[in-house]
């Protein structure tokens, strides 16, 4: 065997090892979700979709899913509005305290979610908002804001500044430059940012554990509570559904809005 072949073999072994390592836990969960018996056994002993049925009809999950949708849609939309405005501010103007503002905005990437969740729990106590939607939405909004802001900022930064000049040169007032040129060009970034925020919010667990109550719990919290009491594959089934839904959303978003570009994964 030549050295080149050996090197190629080594490379592909590494790729396979990484892929296996990254996807194995998910695969295990997906496989147990079709197990016909009540035990979370691996490997599965057959194929059955009864746990999917149970997951879809379990009242706690139904309510938690609805709660999640409410929280996610409100939190991501608010984060989109505030985050876009902020991205615009940072992109357009340089002002005193801009650095501090930026640091505060990025901070949810550094500060652990349980710290933020705990903080919101204490705040909720002080303002008599414990376990209410307001507190949950606020917490989620803070958590997803850096992602939305980044998405919008990146798509703003990729706009050729001469486009605004060209539009002005052709007779467009600053208002028309914003509505006819800048907004349409940044819209995919906003949509992409909103979707990322929505997916993150929908699956957020750590901070949600602190700020939700039994009536307001979101899906990941409900799943956690379920698995503390029962050890059957229902949770595997609901995990599988969440993964598939999220993958679909991301796939569509990538096709429709060029998510790669928004997240600056792709550079062209």
């Amino acid at each position, binding site marked *: 065997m030549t050295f080149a072949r050996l090197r190629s073999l080594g490379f592909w072994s590494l790729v396979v090892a990484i892929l296996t390592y990254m996807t194995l836990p998910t695969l295990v969960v997906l496989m147990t979700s079709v197990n016909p018996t009540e035990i979370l056994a691996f490997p599965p002993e057959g194929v059955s979709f009864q746990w999917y049925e149970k997951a879809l009809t379990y009242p706690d999950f139904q309510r938690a899913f609805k709660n999640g949708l409410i929280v996610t849609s409100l939190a991501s939309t608010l984060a989109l509005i505030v985050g876009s405005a902020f991205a615009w501010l940072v992109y357009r103007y340089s002002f005193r305290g801009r650095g501090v503002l930026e640091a505060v905005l990025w901070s949810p990437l550094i500060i652990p979610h349980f710290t933020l969740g705990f903080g919101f729990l204490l705040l909720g106590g002080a303002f008599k908002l414990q376990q209410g939607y307001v507190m949950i939405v606020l917490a989620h909004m803070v958590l997803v804001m850096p992602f939305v802001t980044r998405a919008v900022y990146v798509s703003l930064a990729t706009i050729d500044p001469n486009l605004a000049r060209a539009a002005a040169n052709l*007779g467009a007032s600053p208002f028309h430059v914003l509505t006819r040129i800048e907004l349409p060009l940044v819209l995919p970034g906003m949509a992409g940012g909103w979707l990322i925020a929505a997916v993150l919010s929908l699956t957020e667990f750590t901070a949600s554990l602190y700020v939700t109550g039994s009536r307001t719990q979101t899906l990941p919290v409900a799943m956690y509570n379920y698995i503390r009491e029962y050890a059957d594959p229902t949770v595997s089934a609901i995990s599988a559904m969440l993964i598939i839904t999220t993958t679909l959303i991301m796939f569509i978003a990538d096709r429709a809005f060029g998510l790669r570009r928004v997240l600056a994964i792709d550079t062209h």
Partner: protein
Amino acid sequence: MTATSQAPAAVELVRVRKEFGSAVGVADVSLKIGQGEFLTLLGPSGCGKSTLLGMIAGFLTPTAGKIVVDGVDITEVEPYRRDIGMVFQSYALFPHMNVFDNIAFGLRMRKLPKAEIAAEVRRVIEMMKLDGFAERRVSQLSGGQQQRVALARAIVIRPKVLLLDEPLSALDKNLRAQMQVELSELHRKTGLTTIFVTHDQGEALSLSDRIVVMNRGEVQQVARPIELYRTPANGFVASFIGEINALPVARYERDGREAALVLPGVGRLAAPARDDGLIHGSAVRAFLRPEHVRPALPDEAGPNIVSGVVAAHIYQGSHTITRVEVDGLGLIETRVTGADIVGAHPVGAPIALMLDLGEAVLLATP
């Protein structure tokens, strides 16, 4: 249309100045641009030509001075109220619109009736040979087509002035030559007063009615292309436009109809005795184009024959540029048709050169 500075001014710059902090971008430039004139701002990068264009378009505010278009002072007017068309170096086509919408943008901003917009856009689409491309996205166009859309978008609003900011620099060489011809045709057809910014002297010489040579924010010379090439006003213009041999500083001697340059280590060279205000005994520099230097004939004699050694040949197909190291003059370039010189005078061989100083530009040295 080859209007000149005698025609009524379409654009007038009055002591326009732009400072960036302590740096001077444009230093008190005054210019009159005639109706329908094709004027080029030429200079190296950083010379202030794009800054000047930016001020005319209204993207930059002058530190001092005023800009008058068609008799109206527009110095303080917002860019979107100026009625000045511009083509950007990067074209700046709107990527979310197709060709038609790009071209129609300016007319829509002017709130023209739909039918009129459609008719006008069709007119320029035809004029710019873009038939069949109206529905295309701009990303599906080639560089040359994008260039035409950018031009169409700028001229469809029937601007008072058309500004072109290095529009050809993004194109490859062949396309650039073709677009030069098209620009020239377009100017002839529309008769638009045009201000063209470039650092390419070839483009400037071939397209312009007049050229403004700029350096370090200052105007060096304003002249027609031929005048600029033949009688550059100073050393910068002489070396920036085309190739030129700058001879060392010499003493100018004049006696009636006879004039001479006295160069230490070389001797006397016969110089043209023109009424150019040069004073007997003053220090001057002679600038001589390579086409005015040629190998001397075998039995040729005269005061302007110098001898040297061939340093290099640069074969260019139609002609050859030969660099000769001449005692006391340094490297002198000669430009001769064909390639015979390469065989006749190999590198390292001695060669006698005839300097046609009658064609030289003599400039007093400060």
